[in-house]
């Protein structure tokens, strides 16, 4: 970006970082370096370990082993406070702001400037305002956000600005952005990039996590690729091509990753006409969304986080209410007033957040698998345990869930196996229409391709699949057709022949 950077003048360097969680080896011999004043992109697929690495740098997680050097000196960071004290700050994906407090209080939380009033320390609100003014001016956003506004009342982009401003109150020299553009509109992304440009001019070094190629090529100086928790390589951005980056990230042939089988596509099974909901209560409006899905098809829904993809799916299965519109299943108009009735009609929704909404993780595989269909086993509320065992064994074998036995607690399974249990739970209901929301979030690459294979074979068996994903290669690799939504409105539909990342992004932003 016009500034000459000396790549041997390192501000931050990490070596041999290892970190494991129950069920996942998140980082193995990871390394990364950051030069002074550099914008360094970190890319990798979902679940490659990018976020874990950043959390290790900022002391949220403690690495099992490894060294970290700051300005050439070895340092240990035990907790977030250490990182702030050393000038490292992170802008989190899920914002870490306190929603009941106002902008100013949030920016200085934990390190408020104090003055002495007589013998006692008192928070100096005037100094706070002054410093905030300085920072806002530094960012070039003076006056755009009222300091007294509660965080709860701010939009996503404004919250992010507050996060950046908060990081600067620590006099941060190293800033880490964790997928900052995931939920921003095109206009907001431009504004963010302007801010990042200003920060760079001031000599602040930045790590930037993203899997959006065009962003990386636009703003980064160098890029480090990681895959499956291991380091792949680092390169100057003007010395690589997008194709090279993708192949490093994926590490295997695309066809292997996305085993899409040819399927005879049948008649229209689901017809959605003009779904509309007033989102003023929860912030998720839907404006006149219509689409048709055919039997045996894998139908993708693309869009930014918060664009209304999940809400659309939840409306379909009766988990959310919509104001108007019609849903036709096999030509008959239906209205799902709750999820149970949707399951009865053959819908099933696999949630994006498997720990929060999908599975009851402290319970066994068996209990989870039959959770939504337990009432079908046995009579009058009494469980038929024999039937249940048989059913569970069948699906565990079919989906190759790797676990010692069916009583094994789901919590102790790896991410990929948990996801398989979740899919198996959906299949137990013998659905006609399977809605998968982010089916491969937080699973390793091996499990990812396995889940794709399962999805593909389900489509072959005649199941209709609606797939929601933020993972663009996944959508383009697996789907027959992709619908793009933006802020609750359908902006287009692409057939497999016309697929390209650019086209989808153009519609989504």
């Amino acid at each position, binding site marked *: 970006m016009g500034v000459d950077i000396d790549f041997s003048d390192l501000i931050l360097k990490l070596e041999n970082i290892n970190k494991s969680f129950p*069920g996942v080896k998140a980082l193995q011999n990871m390394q990364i370096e950051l030069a002074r004043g550099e914008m360094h992109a970190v890319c990798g697929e979902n679940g490659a370990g990018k976020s874990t690495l950043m959390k290790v740098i900022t002391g949220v997680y403690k690495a099992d082993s490894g060294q970290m050097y700051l300005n050439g000196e070895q340092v240990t960071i035990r907790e977030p406070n250490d990182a702030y004290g050393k000038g490292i700050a992170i802008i989190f994906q899920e914002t870490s702001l306190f929603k009941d407090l106002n902008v100013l209080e949030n920016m200085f939380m934990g390190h408020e400037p104090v003055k002495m009033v007589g013998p006692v320390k008192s928070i100096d609100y005037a100094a706070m305002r002054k410093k905030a003014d300085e920072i806002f001016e530094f960012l070039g956003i003076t006056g755009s956000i009222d300091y007294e506004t509660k965080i709860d009342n701010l939009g996503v982009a404004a919250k992010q600005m507050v996060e950046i401003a908060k990081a600067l109150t620590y006099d941060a020299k190293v800033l880490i952005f964790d997928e900052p553009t995931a939920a921003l509109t095109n206009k907001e992304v431009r504004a963010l990039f302007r801010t990042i440009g200003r920060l760079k001019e001031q000599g602040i070094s930045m790590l930037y996590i993203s899997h959006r190629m065009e962003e990386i090529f636009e703003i980064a100086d160098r890029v480090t690729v990681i895959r499956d928790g291991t380091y792949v390589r680092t390169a100057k951005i003007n010395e690589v091509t997008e194709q090279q980056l993708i192949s490093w990230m994926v590490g295997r042939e695309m066809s292997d990753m996305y085993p899409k089988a040819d399927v005879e596509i049948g008649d229209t099974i689901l017809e959605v006409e003009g779904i509309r909901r007033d989102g003023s209560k929860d912030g998720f409006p839907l404006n006149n969304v219509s689409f048709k899905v055919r039997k045996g098809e894998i139908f993708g829904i693309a869009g930014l986080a918060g664009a209304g993809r999940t809400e659309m799916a939840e409306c379909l299965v009766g988990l959310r209410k919509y104001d108007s519109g019609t849903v036709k299943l096999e030509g008959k108009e239906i209205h799902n007033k709750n999820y149970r009735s949707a399951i009865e009609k053959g819908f099933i929704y696999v949630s994006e957040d498997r720990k929060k909404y999908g599975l009851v993780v*402290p319970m066994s595989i068996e209990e989870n698998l039959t959770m939504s269909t337990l009432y079908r086993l046995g009579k009058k509320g009494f469980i038929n345990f024999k039937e249940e065992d048989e059913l569970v064994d069948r699906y565990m074998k079919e989906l190759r869930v*790797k676990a010692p036995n069916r009583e094994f607690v789901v919590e102790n399974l790896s991410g990929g196996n948990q996801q398989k249990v979740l899919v198996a739970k959906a299949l137990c209901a013998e659905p006609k229409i399977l809605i998968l929301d982010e089916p491969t979030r937080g699973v390793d690459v091996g499990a990812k391709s396995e889940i794709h294979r399962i999805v593909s074979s389900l489509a072959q068996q005649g199941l209709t699949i609606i797939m929601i994903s933020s993972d663009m290669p996944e959508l383009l690799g697996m789907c027959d057709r992709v619908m793009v939504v933006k802020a609750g409105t359908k902006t287009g539909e692409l057939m497999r022949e016309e697929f390209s990342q650019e086209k989808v992004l153009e519609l989504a932003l």
Partner: protein
Amino acid sequence: MKKVKISYELVMVFILAAMILIFGGLTDGIFLRLSTMIGCTADVAYLGVQAMAMTLIILTAGIDLSVSYQMVCSAMFCAWTFNATNNIFIAIVVCIISGFVFGALNGIIAAKTPINPWLITMSTMYIFQAISWFFGTSFAFSTGNPVVDIGNMRIGGIVPTQLVILIVVFIIFYILEKKTTFGRYTHAIGYNENAVNYSGINAGKIKFWIYTLGGLMSAVAALMYMGRSWQVNQETGTNMNIEVIALVVLGGTSTAGGVGGVVGSFLACLIIGVLKRGLALMGLPGTVYNFIVGIVLIGSLILFAFLEKRKKLVSRKMAIANMDEQQEG
């Protein structure tokens, strides 16, 4: 290699046996007589009945602080109706219905609003208490009243009817918890209510019925209490809720939800029964028992939190082992 698994229930049985022997020694063998040993359960059976429903409530990560005044209020309704109509059958029906209504009131609020259960039931506790005071200060039954006669009866001269009722209620709740979808969902709600809703189950509806069951059991307990002590007064319910919760917590049910079951609560009820009668036989005042229950409750809370932590560590190791296995395989 298979380790012998010592379940918490088994430990409780040992504690129970040990306590009977200790009290037997301390009371010159009075406690070892069959009639004392079995008879002591009658003192706490009404608490046990309430504890059965409370177990389900706590399993859903909820709590019902209003149980005691649900009971007092139902009892007063019952006695008041009996005084007015002189028909015990109607009085019992009124008692059960009032318990049902009280429980349902808790249940509706718990199911329909996001207010914490303890806050809901603490408020309704004061409401029920106020309602019971509108009836008067105390009511008494006399002999010849079937509630009193049955409440004090001993089948075969040894087994008190109170114990029989407790065992029947225990068996019903055991089946409900272990063998039905209702019980499965109860545990699941305690662990993760969202996931239950996202499985097409109406968690609110299940919670409603659990709280309503709590009210019903309070009504049953009201009849048992009246049968046992012949009277009910304003002071009856004071801090009884803590005794019921103590039984459940002592029984190994986690207040965080999900973990535990009615078997533990049943055994805890027997243990407390022995403790209460044993202390009384040793000549200590009944209030010492209050003090000891408080200490036992805090002790068991700490113990369970500690055990839960250790269990987490073990399961973490299991997870890592499972992962390593997979990577090799």
